[in-house]
């Protein structure tokens, strides 16, 4: 299949044999993220730590051999609640980022390749959305459609679409000026084929890097919104909900805040470090010393 395409795929895109892999730190970050996701998915499926809604013992018990992360204000064990929270947060953010990636890639490559009025329209739309600070936009969404999962999901999409579309559009516009695209046009390829086989393939690395960053923005938005009481609603738990509830009993039971807080920071850190590594790998920059 690849023999007839003119695009030098080898320049970008992930994977492939004989190429430098991302560095150790980034691989460790990716492993950490995969482990978190696995614990969340398998833990919920296997009922690890028991039923998150079940009242198992005394209230606000500190972490110990029986309750590893302590118990909350109603006497529920924190382990299954944190697992459920990570699961909800990761599921919400990653599904929102998938929607964003699809939308932004479509808007970005069409606008970047076609230019002209389409480009202007996309840029104006992106500018308007970009003018809202992320949490402010999320709060507006929650005010309009009501607090809940849907509000969190829609907020993440609306916050990340302008960020990602801008970068993908710029990348697509620069690819669109390459000789191999001109060659494809001259050889009579139709627009959808050019977009898929030449533009999309060559901006896929950018989409991957931006998608990683969007995931961390998504977790931030979900957490912030739920923390303000406008995102995921109790009794459902997400990391933002747990941190908000932990804040209430902070002085009496700091572990309610520390458990979910540490997990959230670990998830964010893994995503951001991995994203940086991916960017350095796909869009390498020179470095030099001054001596």
């Amino acid at each position, binding site marked *: 299949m690849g023999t007839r395409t003119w695009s030098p795929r080898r320049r970008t895109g992930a994977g492939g044999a004989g190429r430098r892999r991302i560095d150790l730190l980034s691989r460790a970050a990716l492993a950490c993220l995969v482990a978190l996701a696995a614990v969340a998915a398998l833990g919920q499926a296997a009922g690890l730590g028991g039923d998150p809604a079940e009242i198992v013992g005394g209230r606000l018990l500190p972490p110990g051999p029986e309750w590893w992360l302590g118990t909350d204000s109603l006497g529920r064990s924190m382990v299954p609640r944190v697992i459920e929270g990570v699961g909800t947060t990761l599921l919400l953010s990653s599904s929102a980022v998938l929607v964003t990636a699809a939308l932004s890639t479509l808007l970005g490559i069409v606008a970047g390749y076609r230019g002209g009025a389409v480009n202007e329209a996309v840029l104006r739309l992106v500018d308007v959305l970009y003018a809202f600070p992320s949490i*402010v936009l999320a709060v507006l969404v929650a005010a309009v459609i009501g607090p809940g999962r849907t509000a969190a999901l829609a907020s993440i999409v609306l916050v990340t679409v302008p960020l990602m579309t801008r970068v993908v559009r710029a990348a697509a516009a620069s690819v669109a000026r390459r000789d191999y695209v001109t060659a494809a046009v001259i050889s009579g390829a139709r627009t959808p084929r050019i977009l898929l086989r030449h533009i999309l393939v060559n901006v896929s690395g950018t989409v991957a890097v931006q998608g990683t960053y969007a995931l961390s923005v998504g977790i931030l938005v979900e957490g912030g919104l739920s923390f303000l009481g406008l995102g995921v609603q109790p009794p459902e738990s997400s990391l933002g909900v747990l941190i908000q509830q932990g*804040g209430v009993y902070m002085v009496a039971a700091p572990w309610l805040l520390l458990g979910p807080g540490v997990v959230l920071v670990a998830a964010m*850190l893994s995503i951001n470090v991995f994203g940086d590594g991916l960017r350095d790998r796909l869009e390498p920059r020179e470095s030099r010393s001054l001596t």
Partner: protein
Amino acid sequence: MRFASWWIGRVASAAGTLLGVSVLIFAAVRFMPGGYAQIVLGPFATPGERAALAARYGLEDPLVVQYGRWIASVGRGDFGTSLLSKEPVAAELVQRLPVTAELAVLAAVAAVLVGVPLGVLTAVRSRDGGGAAAGRLASGLGVSVPEFVLGSLLVFVFSRYALGLTVGGYVPFAADPGANLRAMALPATVLAVAATTAVARTTRDAVMNVLTEQYVTAAVARGEPPWFIVRHHVLRNAAVPVVIVLTVITASLLGGALIVEYLFDLPGVGSYIVQAVGRRDYAVVQAGVLLAATVFILMNVIADFVVGVVDPRLGAAARNGGV
């Protein structure tokens, strides 16, 4: 007069964005599920009450007319009245704005003072393996600790152990500067961490780009010492992205203010908006969101102006139709 026409274009484009923003906010509130009348009167209003409300606010008029009326009153400085307190929203905003502004200025100043040197240092030392990894982890940590986590943690530490700074208990600066700063130190620190990281990362990228220029190679070849090169060849050339990132910071400060003011119980614009959403006070939400977006758009125009001054080449390129 290319210069003037470029500026007119830039301001017109900002005005266009603002128009789009206002239409979006207007539409969001008007097309809310349940409708405007139900929001104001609640679900148990009689048809008579609904009709009276519709007549009073002109809800039967075409949407364009309603939108025009809203924008005209905003232009006169009238942001409507709070649905709950029946007080004018504008008066409340004027009272609360200084709190948010002080918070944002404190955080932004700290971010520049710490972030720029940090970014330069990590860029110049980027070849040093262990140091580079540590820098990456630290910068990763800075963007990975959200305001609500760091803020909650600081509230815990400072309310449990008396460490001299107050949690909550806002005092106006004019009334008692010392008490004001003690109350503002923690929320400003929380906001500053994320902003500092953003400044440091952007500075690092910008400096690393400048370091690969040929004039830096020439300076190294002449045997100029590293910090001389940084000061004379690098800083000004790396200034443009740093000025631009300041606008991004403004956005994160305005958004972060919502969380930090809510958490530290500060009487600013952010906590006003959050409370209003909880009480379904849409006049306040509408005004607050419009204000935040307007400030952000204005900051972008100012940043473009500063960039044009700092780097005349960019200004010239933009005026000639490039960029």
